[in-house]
């Protein structure tokens, strides 16, 4: 369990990081917090030949307040920093909801939020939070900067729309409405384990009725997934236990999670329904509605 030889590159600026990725990106990996990359390398599971360390790149460790009222997290913002941030709690509360579920405290101290998104583990919380909030990915390469909506970012198991020469420099979370309630709920076998199934959800209310809803599940497929049929079923209805139960039932019949040694397909399908009810109830309570 010792990593094989690799070439280590340290980038001291964004332009240097982008240059290194242009040269070595095909056989390389970006190192930020290293919480997923380094164990994978030690297990010699398709290890990269080049490791491009961005930890010395200036200005990527900031939580930026955007003009539209949202927040942008730089590629070096640690989970723990996001967890502690009042700005994040105020402007992107779904991130704050997710943080306590991410691994253990030691992992959150080193691991980065953006790194977790770029790694795209389907059982991780943050990719689902991106889907539920409609986050925007900002990727830089020698060809310039481009933005990718979260809905188009997660392609498959540990696979994203990022090109090998691109660095995910920031993830921008849009302004959170006062009419939005959010929750991140999950069930794992032990404290800190990857979820057997989890849900990042958002409900928007106007008057007595749901005007919009997002149900983004993790741990149930090869990417985080939304269930538009269940979301649509909520819209226009009051946020009641009955409405949530109907959405849960749609979720359970729509999803076909993969079985593994920790849970069967039927179990995860059932659990997704349970989490729908629990998540929506919590989300509604965040804006003072008890269902």
């Amino acid at each position, binding site marked *: *369990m010792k990593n*094989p*030889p690799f070439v280590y590159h340290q980038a001291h600026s964004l332009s240097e990081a982008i240059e290194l990725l242009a040269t070595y990106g095909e056989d390389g990996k970006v190192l930020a917090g290293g919480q997923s990359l380094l164990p994978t390398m030690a*297990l010699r599971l398709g290890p990269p030949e080049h490791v491009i360390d961005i930890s010395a790149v200036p200005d990527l460790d900031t939580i930026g307040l955007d003009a539209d009222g949202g927040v942008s997290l730089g590629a070096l913002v640690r989970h723990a920093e996001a967890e502690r941030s009042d700005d994040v709690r105020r402007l992107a509360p779904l991130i704050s909801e997710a943080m306590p579920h991410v691994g253990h405290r030691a992992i959150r101290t080193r691991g980065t939020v953006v790194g977790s998104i770029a790694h795209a583990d389907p059982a991780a919380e943050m990719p689902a939070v991106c889907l539920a909030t409609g986050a925007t990915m900002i990727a830089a390469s020698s060809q310039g900067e481009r933005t990718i909506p979260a809905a188009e970012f997660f392609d498959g198991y540990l696979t994203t729309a990022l090109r090998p020469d691109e660095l995910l420099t920031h993830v921008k979370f849009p302004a959170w409405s006062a009419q939005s309630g959010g929750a991140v709920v999950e069930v794992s076998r032990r*404290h800190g384990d990857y979820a057997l199934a989890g849900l990042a959800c958002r409900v928007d209310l106007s008057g007595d009725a749901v005007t919009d809803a997002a149900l983004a599940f993790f741990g149930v497929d090869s990417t985080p997934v939304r269930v538009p049929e269940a979301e649509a079923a909520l819209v226009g209805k009051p946020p009641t236990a009955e409405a949530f139960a109907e959405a849960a039932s749609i979720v359970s019949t729509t999803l076909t999670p993969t079985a593994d040694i*920790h849970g069967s397909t039927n*179990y995860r399908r059932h*659990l997704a329904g349970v989490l729908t009810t629990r998540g929506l109830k919590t989300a509604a309570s965040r804006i003072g509605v008890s269902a």
Partner: protein
Amino acid sequence: MTSTDHTQTSGLGFVGQSVKRVEDDRLLRGHGSYVADVTPEGVLHAHFVRSTVAHANIARIDVAAARRAPGVVKVITGAEMKELTNPFPPFMMLPNMYTPLYWALSDDKVRLVGDPVAIIVAESRYLAEDAAQLVEIDYEPLTPVASISDAFNSSKDQLWEKADGNVLFDNTDTFGDIDSVFADADRIVTERFSCQRQSNQPMETRGTVVEVDPESQHLTITNATQSSHALRWIIAALTGKQSTATSLKSFVTNKERRTNLLAGLKAFVDEHSEDLAKADNAGAVSQFKKDKSFPLHLNRISANLAGKTDYPTVVAQDIGGGFGAKGSIAREDIAVAVAAIELGRSVKWIEDRVENLIDGGQAREEDLTVSIALDNDGTFRGLKVDLIMDQGAYPGFPIGAAFITQVMKVMYPGSYKWDAFQVTTKVVCTNKGKYIAYRGPWANETWVRERIIDIAARALRMSPTDLRLKNMIGEADMPTEMITGPTLDVTMSTRKCLERLVYEMDVPAFEAKRAAAAEEGRVLGLGFACFHEAAPGPPNYMDAINPGSGAASDEKARTVVQADGSVKIYTPQMPHGQSHETTYAQIAADELGVNIDDIELIWGNTDKTNFSAIGTGGSRGGPIGGGSVKYGTRELRKLIAAKAADMLEASVDDIEITGGNIHVAGVPSRGLSFAEVAQAKVGESAPGATEAFEATVNYRGKGDGGWSCAAHACVVEVDLDTGLVSIPRYVVVEDCGPIINPAIVDGQVRGGVAQGIGAVLYEGLSYDADANIQTTTYMDYLVPTAMEIPEIDIVHLETLSPGENDFRGVGEGGMIGAPAALTNAIEDALASRGARVTKQYLPPTTILEMAGVIDPDPNSDR
């Protein structure tokens, strides 16, 4: 119970008090010394090339590129290893059992994913692992044997050529007239249980550092072992292979060696003649019928031991847990030693966690069909068990299927009265990691017995505790014996434990709580289980398992007052978490009249400690190891008192020792220190003497018994939405006799219960249909953490039996009781939904399937 300082002030003695652990300061500050901390200058690093397939013949192995790789100094293949070593012999042979012989590395065939086929020694572990990727192996696949049912499927390929298929043992033992008891009883309740494969998982993995003296070639081996002397002898026996003739020639021509060895052998035989007379050779005959080469190898091994003049020194210091795993002597231990011998250089190997999960030791995978015959009034009549144990590919050594099945055989009847008992035992081999002893290795006897009793109670509509107590042996029945042979004396106090636990749990109050919870849609359950265990058991306990094996159980502590007055105790025990430094200091300090910090315990180094075949294991540390310390220091005190009496011109009977002050009774102000008495004694000896007084006592236990008992109960809440189980209350009533240190006993009980909870809710090794292991990291093999383990309340009963040194072992019981109590509670919670718990492993999916909340996946084998 509050912790106690290391200086005696109350006059009550240290034994019985929660003296603060001597070990903690060193270990908690990171000053422990583990194998990985030992890095001799110029040491080389070993890595094993392991099979990537479960079952195959090796058509070709090419290590040429690995030999040329940067930093590589040696590659030894399986074929080369076979020339350099003797095979692992069967340790315990039983009639109708075949134990395959195997070598440190595999040469022509691999039998599990992870089977070591070559060892690479390089300048660093990184370089060794790089080189391993250059080894080319052509496998000719054989059909994988991935399960117990595969092992009985004759279309699957055979792991061991000389076996009958993949079944290595098939034997039935009957006690009493089983057929008429079963015919006569009012009803028979039968259920088939299965227990998943688990792993010991010590925090520190295995590891060994073999240092070679450049002048003498003497080996010094630092190893994470529970049994340093056994390791020393086995490495001497299996390495440096030579022909029997060469060995015997060396033995015959070396008069000193011959004389010493024969004298040692004679002394051992004399000392243990009674035990040895009970042994028979029926098992060896079975073995020989299957494998005619077996005597040749055994002769070579014996001759090798006789012919050698230099055995390795095994050193072991701090050990990060073992739970039985480090009582095993592994193929890697031999291979690393051979690499060092061949190179004449020091070699280090630290097992990584993936290796540890693949083949560091596995346990418990058993199918058990149990029938209980009972009358309608609840009277137990007869018990039948049909066990199939999956021992994996290679036999555990020295403790494996042979020993563990026989302990199970003796213990199935538990603390109850039976008219008859029958057990059929089958052992099969599969393409999995080796089955070894894991804390309470026989524990499934308790699990299935206590499960079937709950199932029978439900069938009879009786309270499960009433049913147990109705049939349980109590003091009024004593002296008596288990139907399988061992004597039961007053130390078998299971009945008292259970009666107390019934009081603690207040069943009517629980039922009220359960009803109130049900109103809120919450589901509660309550489960009990109880057992007794040998700790270390009466003399006829070992005879019931394997006649004559009691010869291995005695132990010699050497106790010394140094010239400077300090006290040293040399024990053959191998502490690996049991707090020997504290408890032995308590015993010794009370005998000698000194303080805790005056005692230094020395262990692990085979040059300094007396031989013990076992080391630490089998709940012997308190009663046997502690007894040898007690009587050793008692002898030592006599020597000190005699010398002090001379110096003080007093009668030895008037000498008292308190807080290290040796004085005449009533005049402590005119006392002598240990240093003064020791100096005076050394002054009479030859110049340079470092030891003033010395006493060594051989101890075999107090001779009349020694059971530890416990009753466990827990309350569970099952979340029918998620399948998660929480444990709001867990209570253990335990009785290990007089307690040396209550805080340490609590720690042992809680640690065992934690592993038992792990066994039910978290820990399952998993293999796919092709016998590929799927649980190779801690993301998939889930060891419970502090977050998952509830508060565990403990009530101590301290039943005394006549005579001194009445301590009984307590290390294993937590693990024995917990799976039974927890699965009984879960079934109780779900019984109204028709659930019956037949598996030990109950992950959330299984819980919801049992509760009828979800259906099993189509085509699922769960």
